[in-house]
């Protein structure tokens, strides 16, 4: 096995383990920390694919900004440990078969694909930050502007909701 393959499996295992731990942890803060590990492991996978800018932004935006807010809110609310309840009926009768079905589909897809699946080429066009921003501000400028408009509306909504009490 070459070094990139080893690194891939280490990061992938880390991401999956952290995701499982995110669900199984009893304390919200521990769940949030597990989610941060997932984000950082994903950033490592992006880096492995040669998308450095996306990797850095993944950590800055998701690992940094968004998860800090999660942690912040959990701390401010002083959320304690969750209590375990019995599984809901829906989860037992519908959830477990569905989970098995999805696992089966994925396993089948992996089994049917040939062993010598070529790794995704690090696409030269997207790796450079310059090309990325050129694309974003020329070909995809409408979706980009629409997204920023959407975020602006969300911010205004948040301010209106926060101001209502006064």
């Amino acid at each position, binding site marked *: 096995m070459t070094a990139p393959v080893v690194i891939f499996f280490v990061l992938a295992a880390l991401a999956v383990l952290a995701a499982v731990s995110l669900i199984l942890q009893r*304390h919200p*803060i*521990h769940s949030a*920390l597990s989610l*941060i590990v997932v984000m*950082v492991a994903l*950033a490592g996978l992006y880096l492995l694919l040669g998308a*450095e*800018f996306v990797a*850095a*932004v993944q*950590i*800055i935006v998701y*690992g*940094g*900004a968004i998860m*800090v*807010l999660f*942690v*912040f809110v959990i*701390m*401010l609310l002083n959320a304690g440990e969750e209590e375990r309840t019995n599984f809901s009926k829906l989860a037992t009768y519908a959830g477990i078969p569905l989970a098995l079905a999805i696992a089966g589909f994925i396993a089948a897809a992996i089994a049917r694909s040939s062993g010598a699946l070529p790794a995704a080429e690090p696409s030269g066009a997207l790796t450079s*930050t310059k090309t990325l921003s050129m694309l974003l501000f020329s070909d995809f400028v409408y979706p980009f502007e629409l997204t920023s408009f959407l975020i602006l509306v969300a911010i205004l909504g948040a301010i209106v909701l926060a101001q209502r009490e006064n």
Partner: protein
Amino acid sequence: MSDFLAKYAFLIVPILKIAVLVFLVLTVDAYLTWIERKVIAHIQARWGPHRVGPHGLLQPLADGVKFIFKEDPIPAHVDKAAYFLAPFLTLMLALTSLAVIPFGPQTFTVFGYQTHIGIADVNISLLVLFAITALGVYGIALAGWASNNKYSLLGGLRSSAQMISYELALTLSVVGVLLLAGDFSLRGIVEQQTVPGKGLLSWYVFPQIIGFLCFYIAAIAETNRVPFDLPEAESELVAGFHTEYASMKFAMFFIAEYTSMITVSCLATILFFGGWLSPFPETWTWTQYLPSVLLIPFGLWVIFDGFRYENLFGRILLPAVGFALTVIGAALLVFAALNGAIQGPFWFFAKVFTFLFVYIWMRGTLPRFRYDQLMSFGWKFLLPVSIANVVLTSVVILWRMH
């Protein structure tokens, strides 16, 4: 053996460089505390540490021994995992951020592997630095929360709010430099500031003076130092997020704080003050003797000062140190190649030291902000000014292009 070294040089050389850098940084951290205590003492008309070793020079060593051997009680009802994770995370991230900083221009070859001064030379090094800074919030927030103490929690919350707020201004204040340089790599940004014959006039601090002021203010807030050290305001919060930490775990927060001071000073040097570039034009060749000109008189003065020191230990140690400094200065005069090699690092560390001194100077001079003042300053003044700086810079660049 040499085959093995040549084959795995890509692995061995970085590990060696990391070991050397970590050793150097920890030593500098230790002596930074000594410098800080001495400088503040002199600002306040005191002597500062002067008992352990001549001029208190062995004080950092004594502090280190004390940190290791002190009892390390764990308070009841702490969240064990987060309580232990927090100091390690803080220190690890602080040290990691130094990995992308280039300290000098030269490349050198070890075991047939070409490398340069600095650990990793990535082409998005500035983004990597910001990513690591973004994660740095967790260490302090977790420490405050896990300690199960209201002062710690308030300190941790204050600090995370402060760091999120000032991170925006910090990132935006750098955009001007990025627009001018057109490069995310710190090495590239320094190389962009190299204009032959212009010396310090080509540094980005002149076109980006607003950006620099915003950057430095935001960086001080980001490292939780005076006048923005509210997370540890002892009159209100005992010791803030590290109230419940003792011994080596406290030392980790302490080392992390000093390491991030060094990182921020390195970053200010690289982005705005030309990194390893000399402030003089290349034609002034005599300026390359400046390191010797500074080292030799200083070494001679240390010898002179040592001979009249009050106790025998000082009368032996200080002249020895002075002699070593003089010999290094003389060696630089004799060996031209060596002198050429240290020019870059010399200027780099001179600039970094200046910024560190300003940090300490401010701690001795300025009072602390109030919390609401801090927040309104960050959001209502610093952020708009750095956005205006971005707009202004882009307009000027566009105008020049046409």
